[in-house]
């Protein structure tokens, strides 16, 4: 898995590191880690409904923050569990943009093994960086 949960940091919450060879891969991995904090076995989420997500931000890390917040928003507003299928990131001088295609379905307690509700993405130690191997982010989710 391109993400791992990390013990002993912000212990009442969930911390994870996600990686990708490209920034897009890393964003998708972070979205999976966020959903994975809420539901075991992500493959149990069937792609029954689609949502297009378009976001922009002057900073790349806040673009990721916004994307993860969207995943959390749909979970409450529409009871939708979403996985990102494809994502492109663009940039110009002023800002970064992200366009994502997400698919998923309504929470079904019979089929989805839920864990805990993610309340928010925090900015404590929140980082997005390019490494020798690609891209990496560190995120703490409020539980």
């Amino acid at each position, binding site marked *: 898995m391109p993400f791992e949960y990390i013990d*002993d940091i912000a*212990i009442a919450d969930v911390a994870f590191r996600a990686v990708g060879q490209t920034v897009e891969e890393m964003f998708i991995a972070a979205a999976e880690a966020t959903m994975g904090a809420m539901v075991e076995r992500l493959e149990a989420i069937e792609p029954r409904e689609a949502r297009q997500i378009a976001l922009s931000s002057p900073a790349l890390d806040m673009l990721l923050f916004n994307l993860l917040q969207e995943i*959390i928003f749909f979970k409450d507003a529409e009871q939708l569990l979403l996985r990102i299928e494809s994502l492109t990131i663009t940039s110009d001088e002023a800002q970064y943009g992200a366009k994502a295609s997400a698919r998923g379905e309504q929470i079904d307690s019979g089929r989805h093994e839920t864990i805990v509700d993610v309340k928010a993405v925090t900015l404590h130690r929140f980082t997005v960086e390019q490494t020798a191997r690609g891209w990496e982010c560190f995120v703490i989710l409020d539980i």
Partner: protein
Amino acid sequence: MAIISKLKKISDTVWEVPADYKEGMRVPARIYGTEKLVTEMDEGVLEQTTNVATLPGIEKYALCMPDGHWGYGFPIGGVAAMDERSGVISPGGIGFDVNCGMRLVLTSLTYDEIREHLRRLVDRLFERVPAGIGCSGFVKVSQDEFRTMVEKGAQWCVEKGYGWAEDLERTEEFGRVGGADASKISQKAVERGYKQIGTLGSGNHYLEIQVARSENIFDPALAKALGINIADQVAVMFHCGSRGFGHQVATDYLQTFLKVMGPKYGIRTPDRELACAPFLSPEGQDYFAAMKCAINMSFANRQVILHRVREVFSEVLRKDPVDLGMHQVCDVAHNTARLEMHDVGGRQKRLLVHRKGATRALGPGAEGLPALYRLTGQPVIIGGSMETGSYLLTGVDSGEQTFFSTAHGSGRTMSRHKAKKMFHGKTLQRDMERRGIYVRTASLSGLAEEAGPAYKDIDEVVQATQAAGISKIVARFVPVGNVKG
């Protein structure tokens, strides 16, 4: 490395980090707890409490309560009071789950009287009080009505028939904090929250049927004054917050503050999660008014849940809730910022007190305390893990040292991930049932994360608050039934 080596012992329960510990600290930091508790505290507590001490306008000390642990922005258990004029307001000092809090309701029943009904009671509570991820409640309101509701809080609920008038005077702020302004909340916040009134949520949120056994009454006079007056009395306690609505309000303003904090106000913080704005700035005032809507949503949420609890007891035991003596004892908020008068250098001053994972605990006779608590002091609940039990305490006169604040729970000592690896949900559920605690849960994984050993020793935490003179122990409640989010 244990943080205690970096602290100066002030008393058996107060430990100080001097203001020269870190660049930018404006005041010293003080951590409350016994030597055992402080020895076990993680490095995050030291880092975050000293970060809080750098915030503009902070008065006296950046504080951490005995249940403190690593959070984000403030530590969990963090308390900081800012000068109203020169200070800041920070969502990271309140938490995303604004007014996450607890409510306690008594019954006139003994454990023997409910024993044979216990499973039915818990099963029905599990059905009637939705728990878990993304759940929605039974109160159907339009988005416009929701905007009205968040300005009126629990008062809205009582007007609609969800509760008794007396519940309001037993709730902080009478269930409705003034100055809530729905024009300051986003459409997104409304969409996230308007279907969630009357829901528990998940994580450490719970609804328990508990028993106050005679041997667990530590102050009989206070217990009696608060309505605990029969042996093995049954009570219901629950813990939940402002749900997706409050989470979105905090997220919205965290981003607003990040944009203006440096460029407009020249404030730098050591952690972006401490993003803030001057309290009296337009952004600060907008957040204050929006955050109050989230405070009210949470009061309303707990009010509707109380209504459901009364309905379930009435249905299962075939008696009117009035005849079952289902009076609320108190409702306390954990994650708030409020304007309060406090003593600073012998002078009364208006301060914006941030409490994050901390409870207000006013002493007897304090201004703002409803008449029925005037002699007892404010009742305070300190919730333990689902395996160990919870405490009822009261505020005391000597609480000014912490701006009349005390602990809110037992505090975690183990990460969720580690707890899930160590404990198995189904086994834990069976073990608890064998020990007389019947549990229904929306998530067995979530249950494993909340296992008792993942938390500090609740007895040590409450004793630390009593020894420090910030709250007084009244009674301990042990769980017999639990609905887990």
